[in-house]
């Protein structure tokens, strides 16, 4: 039997107590034990960024992070990004720019870019933006629309959630 560990963590603002095998990756804990399947297996060895989540606010490759690392720390996943029905500004912009084609890398990209947006005091130059995005492989878009969405949000000054212009409920419904 593999060794098991008990861990107490906060996932998207909710506390959780879990018993997992010691060799469990954070990604598999999220996907298999908690049903949070928004974070993806892309390569499973830290090359592609599709599994990126936030651990205490920092982007982290959950496929090469032990679940145990989440003990006593706060995890944020794509499922926790649209709060109170309002999309995160980077989500809203990605949607409008069609920055997601197949959408498989998208959760990881949202998680990698969100901290840039969330710190309104931090001026983010284009080099930093490219550097952050350099950690995530997107095979569909050529990054063009992802960059244009992120640039728009970062240049917008007002990086608050649910900006008046484009905020939308996260539902697929629209009006005729």
């Amino acid at each position, binding site marked *: 039997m593999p060794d098991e560990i008990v861990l107490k963590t906060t996932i998207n603002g909710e506390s959780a107590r879990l018993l997992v095998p010691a060799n469990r990756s954070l990604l598999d804990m999220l996907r298999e034990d908690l049903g949070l399947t928004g974070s993806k297996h892309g*390569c499973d060895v830290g090359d592609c960024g599709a599994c990126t989540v936030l651990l205490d606010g920092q982007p982290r490759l959950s496929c090469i992070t032990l679940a145990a690392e989440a003990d006593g720390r706060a995890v944020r996943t794509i499922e926790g990004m649209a709060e109170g029905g309002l999309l995160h500004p980077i989500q809203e912009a990605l949607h409008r720019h069609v920055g997601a*084609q197949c959408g498989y890398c998208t959760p990881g990209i949202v998680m990698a870019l969100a901290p840039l947006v969330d710190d309104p005091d931090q001026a983010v130059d284009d080099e930093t933006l490219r550097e952050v995005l350099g950690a995530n492989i997107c095979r569909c878009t050529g990054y063009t629309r992802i960059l244009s969405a992120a640039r728009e949000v970062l240049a917008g000054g007002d990086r608050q959630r649910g900006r008046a212009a484009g905020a939308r409920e996260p539902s697929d419904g629209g009006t005729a």
Partner: protein
Amino acid sequence: MDRSDDLDRKAAMEKRVAERLAARAAKEAAQAQQAEERTAADVTDPSTYMGPADTRSGQPAEGGVVGAGGRGKIDGLAKITGRAIFADDLKLPRMAHAKVLRSPHPHARIVSIDTHEALAMEGVLAVVVGTDLPTRHGAIPVVMDETALALDKVRYIGEPVACVCATSEELAWLACQRINVVYELLPPVLTIEDALDADKPAIHEWRRKGGNVLRKVDQSYGDVDAALAGSDLVLEESYEYPASTHVPLEAHCAVAAPSDEGRLTVWSSTQNPHYMHRTLTRVLGMEQASIRLIKPDVGAGYGGKCDTFCSDILSAHLARLLGRPVKMAMEREEVFYAHRGRHRTRMWLKMGMNKDGRITAIDFKAWADGGAYSSYGVVTSYYLGVFMPLPYRLDNYRFESTRLYTNHPPAGPKRGHGAIQPRFALEVHLDRMARALGLEPADVRANNLFPPDSITVNGLRITSMGLPDCLAQVREASGYDEKVGLQDSGPFKRGIGLAASAYMCGALHPIYQTDTPHSGIQLKIDRSGRVTAFTGTADCGQGSNHMVACVVAERLGIQPEMITVIEADSDLCPVDLGSYSSRVTFMAGNAALHAAETMRSRLVTAVADKFGVQPEDVLCCDGQYSAGDQALKWTDVIELAESRFGTLGATGSYRPPKIGSRFRRQSVGPSPAYSFTAQVAEVTVDEETGIVTVHDIWAAHDLGRVLHPEIAMGQIEGCVYMGVGEAMLEEQRYRDGVMTTPSILEYRIPTVYDTPEIHAILVESHDPEGPFGAKECGEGPQLSTVPAIANAIFHASGIWLTHPPFTPEKVLRALRQRDLQRAREAT
């Protein structure tokens, strides 16, 4: 809302209506004239045109939906919130997991497989070997050479040999390592030369003839030898295009679950659910009606998910065997072995040109390393040759292409299937000859183009043709004409290059013979006003769901967000042949248009009768049906129509036109329409290191009609991106049959740093048969990227590169040869 607002709104609405009506009238007049001209053109060659297609593209777009952007796509929100459900995200009660053991040898006979140790492990539910599923299958029914697991022989490193099903994925993986296989090694066939050598062992020893040649195609049109002999300049060159692979971020995955009455539901990350449905039926020996095949959200394919894979067959087989749900998800490494990517292709091209730049003749040969199984290889063998006479006028053309078996993982259809390699050769060749004659290559291209409504020497029917516009626009946007005159000194040389290309919009013939439609759509309308479109299409991220919604919404005069698209579920949706050959917008778009027309005519009839006007006077847009002063909002239209006609439903289908050909054996290649692209690349060559940097690529693509600008540009950008990868970095490399690149670390797809600025330009040519005039835009734009970069490198440094990817080592080698040559010329 106060009254003045109301009045403003009404005035604005009236203005819009008037504009729309005027635009409609103008467009109709133009189309009528075009149709007349086209009929005249058709008459000139009655042998090639035998009847109209199921198309209704003569309809103008008045709903304001076609061409509108800025609001995302209908399934975009699910993707940015992580709610999209991919196959690996499915978790069912009691679900078991399957993993396969793969061959460590490129070519070996299986002597024995000992599964006892694996079976004895606690939690292992079943072990399956090849003989449990011995039925052969294949992507193209004429060559069925593959089994779910190797039967008696392995033919490539990574071929699935045995499968374990266990209560957890980890356990299944561990149990696979406990299966003992004894192999008797056979000499592998690993090169094109060996595959052509009849004395080498046959990889498929059961085939009666052909050795390791899967298919050889040769076609000849005109008098190539005479034309070459009479040409002012003849150039002959060999090219080699490397193997590359798709790397969709989502690995292949399938989940199967037994359901009521002995039925089986299979969820698979596939591009071609309908063909898979047929394959599963065959291999499992089930009735097709007993399998429900569902394609969940798919994390892209680019051609890599067109085949039926071991994961599909094994999960289905095990679910049936064990009576519980089974998932089989591939690891990233396994996706590289599943492959079906670009064929490594050796090419030889001889072309004649006259002093005025007119292309006189092309003689072309290609040999493609197809790996161990055929996949879509029969089609590849044709695609390597049939598109060469596009888009340049050419009276004399001959090609011979050979698709070979080797002991490499099977190659197959990757974006721009079969056409990428010859296009690279042709476009580089053309630049080279134009320069040798002192002509501007861009002008040579522009001067050689077919006009719209032409027929190529090998019988391909060109309808719309926007390449002149594409060429003009990329030259303008990139500053090509100014930059082409500049030359740098010093080690950093800037260069600019151009290339053009053409691609198909779906194949006229499906992979099996049938007269049934290639695409079907079913519509139903709820009393709430929500429209549901049921379609067999398989969205893999390219936006086909939105395309269907867009076409339907446009005709019904509502917004796409009002439409729910239910796709690729064989119990719910009419058949569509799948996401391959760039067929979906053209074919499914026409089917959607057909269904929407049928629905619209009922709605309009009901409204017209109520208004006391003619149906053609009813304007449908912005969720309102109006005529003159009278207007009804969408839900009232539904109530009216449903009261009159009963439940509102409509179907639509598309069958391509029956275009005959003067040429027999010409069943693979013809398409109802062709898309065209022109690209300019700007690069810097560092002549000390050989490192080439691609700065910018301008890509103008004739997509017929823009249905959704951001999605269309995204497709072009994605194509260019993939082309840059193939030009600069990507190569599926082998050493003695061992792929040395089975990871994202070693198989280097471009990161954001390796991707140039991509400038997509949309060019509309209004195809007479495309839905609202639309054509494909998801494959064609990749064709001209690699040659544009090669031509830019020549412009920078005066070296012709014939073998992508353009690694620093190859560039340096070419630079040294150039310097030797220059030194020789100087003395």
